[in-house]
């Protein structure tokens, strides 16, 4: 019976993320990163993931949970979620440390070959976790976002643009799509007071 139950659990877990909030967060993160990078205050953009993370829980509780309902997944799944969150934090911390090491080693002046490709690197840094989110949640639209980010990274390298163009371009696409998913979710799941059985 385990296989059948696992399939049901996987489907339930996937539907848990079908509200569009995560998409909006990703889109807004990209827009904020783009704008702050453009304005030369990219450090401010770097703290936005923490803002997103702290906004996600209250928004989900207020907006999504009354409509989608409350569910507690298995202990195994909860462990996976915790491990995934830890992995994301470790990834971004590692990426920042790597950036710092590169900056210290080269003092901002990279070898010419690396310098050409480095503009696409920040987009790859967002594409990788987006891909992991797709695999973890089975919401494969995040794989499409990862592909879009990689494509944007490649484009700005080839065109010699700054990374903020890629961030903003992807943010402009992903944010409205997230709102579209959210509005669809809200129209399909009206908040009704629960009737105690």
């Amino acid at each position: 019976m385990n296989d059948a139950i696992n399939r049901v659990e996987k489907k339930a877990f996937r539907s848990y993320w079908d509200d569009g909030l995560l998409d909006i967060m990703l889109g807004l993160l990209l827009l904020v990163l783009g704008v702050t990078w453009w304005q030369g205050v990219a450090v401010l953009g770097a703290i936005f993931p923490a803002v997103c993370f702290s906004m996600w829980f209250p928004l989900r509780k207020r907006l999504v949970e009354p409509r989608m309902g409350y569910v507690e997944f298995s202990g195994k799944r909860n462990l996976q979620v915790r491990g995934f969150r830890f992995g994301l934090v470790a990834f971004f911390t590692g990426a920042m440390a790597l950036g710092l090491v590169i900056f210290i080693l080269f003092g901002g002046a990279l070898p010419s070959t690396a310098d050409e490709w480095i503009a696409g690197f920040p987009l790859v840094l967002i594409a990788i976790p987006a891909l992991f989110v797709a695999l973890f949640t089975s919401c494969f639209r995040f794989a499409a976002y990862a592909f879009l980010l990689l494509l944007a990274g490649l484009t700005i390298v080839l065109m010699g643009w700054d990374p903020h163009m890629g961030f903003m371009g992807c943010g402009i696409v992903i944010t409205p799509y997230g709102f579209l998913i959210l509005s669809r979710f809200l129209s399909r799941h009206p908040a009704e007071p629960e009737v105690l059985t």
Partner: protein
Amino acid sequence: MKDNAPTPELNRLLHEPARLRTLVQLAAVNKADFTWLLGQTGLSRGNLSVQMTKLADAGMVTIDKRFHNNRPQTLFALTASGRQALVDYKQNMQLILDGIPG
């Protein structure tokens, strides 16, 4: 299934699509509230309410009523006997299906 073997009995409580669907959903998670089950099973509120009461009366699910985020919430969880009933149901159904020629 051997010819002389008795036909396995199906649990009539589970042999109802709405209840079976609900139990399978509950078997996949630790706990779920009424609204979550509505969304996952596609049942109407009235139907789900009736089925959950029957399952709770049979001891297959537990009902925990509480207030969560200032809203009334009814949490359901599968009991050990509910899980066992689901396993038995599948085994018995498999035996019956195996007996169908073709």
